């Protein structure tokens, strides 16, 4: 599937929409927003042994922000948290001419993943320091 088709597919049928219980073990939650448009995105990861085993999101706002969160959750699954931290869009594209994206949409998903990972790490650290 061409990359642009894949994105449209993720818009029409976003994958991984939903949420985990915030306080469950291994869950990291990232909540980010884009004041340019008033978009708000919640992205959660579930981590087992430093591997992201599942991801869920909910985004209110621009269509392309929704598509990119859907793509990001697909991408992040199965990655180690270190790999996910260095998220980069190195997709091989068949066709190099694509419509553009709004600037804030292009970073929202990335910010959300980073926020979720850092939330996960914070919770883990506080657990270890408490216990």
């Amino acid at each position, binding site marked *: 599937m061409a990359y642009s088709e894949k994105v449209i597919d993720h818009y029409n049928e976003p994958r991984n929409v939903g949420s985990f219980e915030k306080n469950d073990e291994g869950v990291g939650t990232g909540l980010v927003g884009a004041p340019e448009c*008033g978009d708000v995105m919640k992205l959660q990861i579930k981590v087992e042994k430093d591997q992201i085993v599942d991801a869920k999101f909910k985004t209110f706002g621009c269509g392309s922000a929704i598509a990119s969160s859907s793509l990001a959750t697909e991408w992040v699954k199965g990655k180690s948290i270190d790999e996910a931290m260095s998220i980069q869009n190195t997709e091989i594209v068949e066709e190099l001419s694509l419509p553009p994206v709004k600037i804030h949409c292009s970073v929202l998903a990335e910010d959300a993943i980073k926020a979720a990972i850092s939330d996960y790490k914070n919770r883990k650290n506080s657990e270890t320091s408490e216990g």
Partner: protein
Amino acid sequence: MSEEPSHSRCCERCGTELVSCLFCFDCSSLQPLSPSTNYFYALGIPDGFELDLTLLEEQFRQIAGELHPDFYMNSSSAEKKLSGRASTLLNQAYDNLKDSFKRATYLMRLKGKGLEWNERVLPPGFLEEMFSLQEELDAMLEKQDQPGLKRFQDLLDKRRRGLESGLIPLFRMLESVKELEVVLEQLQMKLNAERYLQSLLDRIQVEETT
């Protein structure tokens, strides 16, 4: 960075001091455009956040009624072009000053030139609240809960107006304090919050029209 005094230019043709930098009403001539035209001066009104909307409207009508390209159809191509560009600018100035949040954004850009502040600042806990409001709205839209939506909309409108009136004291403060960045960040926070409220309101409106 030295700034050109925003409200004092004279007509290129007859030398009269201009009310609007776009047009001389004394000798009915289009004025050359400067690259950084002040919107307030374009409309010939005193600059500042608190403005007289009736005056804005009147000035716009007066100036638009002279500048418009329709009156320059048979003029030289240079004049034709100038009237088109000046009219575009006048429309932009009017659109940006008429709405208080756009006006605030414009003024902050003017006053904060060369300064830096956190442009993504939000009140503490605000994003969490917006997220849960969005979810609440989702549920109401799904149930087609019309009275609920109406209440929700009224509430958002009220908060928006609250933010709007909160801008006035901050702009007054901007005139008197040294630490401009602190005030600018406070202003920015209100403008950012407004956009989140607006995106909620937009969803209700889209629902109404479809």
